[in-house]
């Protein structure tokens, strides 16, 4: 068996500005491809990405060399397997279950969404991305985590700094200096709040982890909160912006979504169409085979869920935003043990609360120039501006 073909032409800039034509070509021609610019073997078909995520023994999340470690000043659950991952995951996931969210948190989310949507100025052109999507995602997350004392701006800055540090594959010291400073700020806040969250449990993730009968070490409690900050703002922010874009550029679908109150389906379609987290990496633990090619031990494969979500084997015209698909078995939340812990929160907040509220308040909202919307990102992707007229 041969190694997968090697591509030396695809650039990171191309993947960041518009990866979709490339992925479409790869699905047809080279679904298993070593891409030199990424240093990884890209998998672009849904069956391959799912098979990898569902087999953590062969495709490990544990990466001893990850820049996440210095960026988060911890070995986090994202980069652990098996029991080590499970115990830390369980500690935080208790606060993120559908039941907790529905019964304990929904009224607060609704209040926050009303407050943030309510302060948007009617009749003006507003960049929804910076005026709503980011700050509201940050506020909701701060409450879920049990650190509402942090400001929206702090939450968003920490999140971006952690992401930049985690992606610092060039190991630039100046980026780690910035993440060190943010870690100091976060650690100080968490320590300051610890006593209160312990003695007055509030159902937040921090309280749940602190008051568990057999708590995980304090270092890992901090690490879990940081992972949630790094991984819990961009995704709902980008999902919301993507779905609003999809609906505003397809007015017939928007009308139908409204009529059927199918906001949850619009949510699923938005994250299928442009998955906020586009790719993940896994380390190969034994020589194996994927799609007819030899995959050697030690290789790093990259599952491109962005591409899997448009796979012709599963979707008719997957390149288009179409809310009313028969089936939508997307992989935007991943699958396997690392399946997104925030999936329920995202579905409820964005799909069931924010979208209907936003379109109810601004029924004639429009996107004057869809071409002016800039999309960006290879690892994380979404519109980075969304200038809409609020009416």
């Amino acid at each position, binding site marked *: 068996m041969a190694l997968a073909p090697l591509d030396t032409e695809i650039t990171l800039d191309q993947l960041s500005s518009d990866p979709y034509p490339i992925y479409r070509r790869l699905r047809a021609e080279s679904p298993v491809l070593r891409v030199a610019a990424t240093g990884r073997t890209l998998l672009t078909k849904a069956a391959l990405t*799912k098979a990898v*995520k*569902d087999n953590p023994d062969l495709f490990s999340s544990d990466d001893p060399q990850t820049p996440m470690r210095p960026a988060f000043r911890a070995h986090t659950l994202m980069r652990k397997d098996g029991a080590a991952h*499970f115990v830390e*995951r*369980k500690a935080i*996931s*208790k606060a*993120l*279950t*559908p*039941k*907790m969210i*529905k019964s304990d948190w929904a009224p607060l989310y609704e209040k926050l969404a009303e407050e943030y949507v309510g302060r948007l100025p009617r009749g003006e052109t507003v960049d929804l991305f910076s005026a709503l999507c980011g700050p509201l995602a940050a506020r909701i997350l701060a409450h879920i985590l049990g650190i509402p004392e942090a400001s929206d701006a702090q939450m968003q800055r920490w999140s971006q700094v952690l992401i930049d540090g985690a992606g610092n594959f060039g190991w630039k010291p100046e980026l780690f200096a910035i993440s060190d400073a943010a870690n100091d700020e976060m650690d100080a806040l968490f320590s300051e709040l610890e006593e209160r969250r312990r003695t007055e449990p509030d159902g937040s993730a921090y309280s749940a982890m602190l008051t568990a009968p057999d708590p995980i070490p304090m270092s890992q409690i901090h690490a879990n909160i940081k992972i949630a900050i790094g991984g819990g703002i961009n995704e709902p922010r980008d999902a919301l912006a993507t779905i609003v874009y999809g609906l505003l550029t397809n007015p017939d679908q928007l009308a139908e979504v409204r009529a059927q109150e199918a906001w*949850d389906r619009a949510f699923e379609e938005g994250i299928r169409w442009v998955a906020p987290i586009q790719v993940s990496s896994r380390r190969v633990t034994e020589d194996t085979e994927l799609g007819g090619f030899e995959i050697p031990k030690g290789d790093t494969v990259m599952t491109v869920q962005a591409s899997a979500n448009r796979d012709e084997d599963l979707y008719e015209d997957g390149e288009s935003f179409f809310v009313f698909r028969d*089936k939508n078995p997307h992989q935007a*939340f991943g*699958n*396997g*043990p*690392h*399946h997104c*812990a925030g*999936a*329920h929160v995202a*579905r409820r907040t964005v799909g069931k609360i924010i979208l209907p509220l936003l379109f109810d308040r601004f029924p004639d909202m429009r996107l004057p120039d869809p071409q002016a919307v800039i999309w960006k990102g290879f690892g994380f992707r979404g519109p980075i501006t969304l200038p809409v007229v609020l009416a």
Partner: protein
Amino acid sequence: MIKVTYVAPDGTATTLEAEPGSSVMQTAVANDLDGIVGECGGAMMCATCHCYVDPAWQDRTGARSSDEEEMLEGAATEVTEASRLSCQIRLDPALDGLVVHLPEEQH
């Protein structure tokens, strides 16, 4: 082949044939059955494959593990004595004919 019957909240029953060793969740997902999502693929991380085992079968499907118990706490609908995560019910010939009931929702 092992047969499993899934009863939807409206009473509609669907009988599927399962491979020995596969789970109640996997069998449903492989056949595109509505009502079982199984988003995490059976890693006990999502509680979207919740089902209620028919009283006639509860002895044979066995007990819930403590990890399953904890994850079930997060299920979207009411958890009862009959509740199981269907990814944790492995099918063997002794379970041929198994009947499970599906909840109203999984998210």
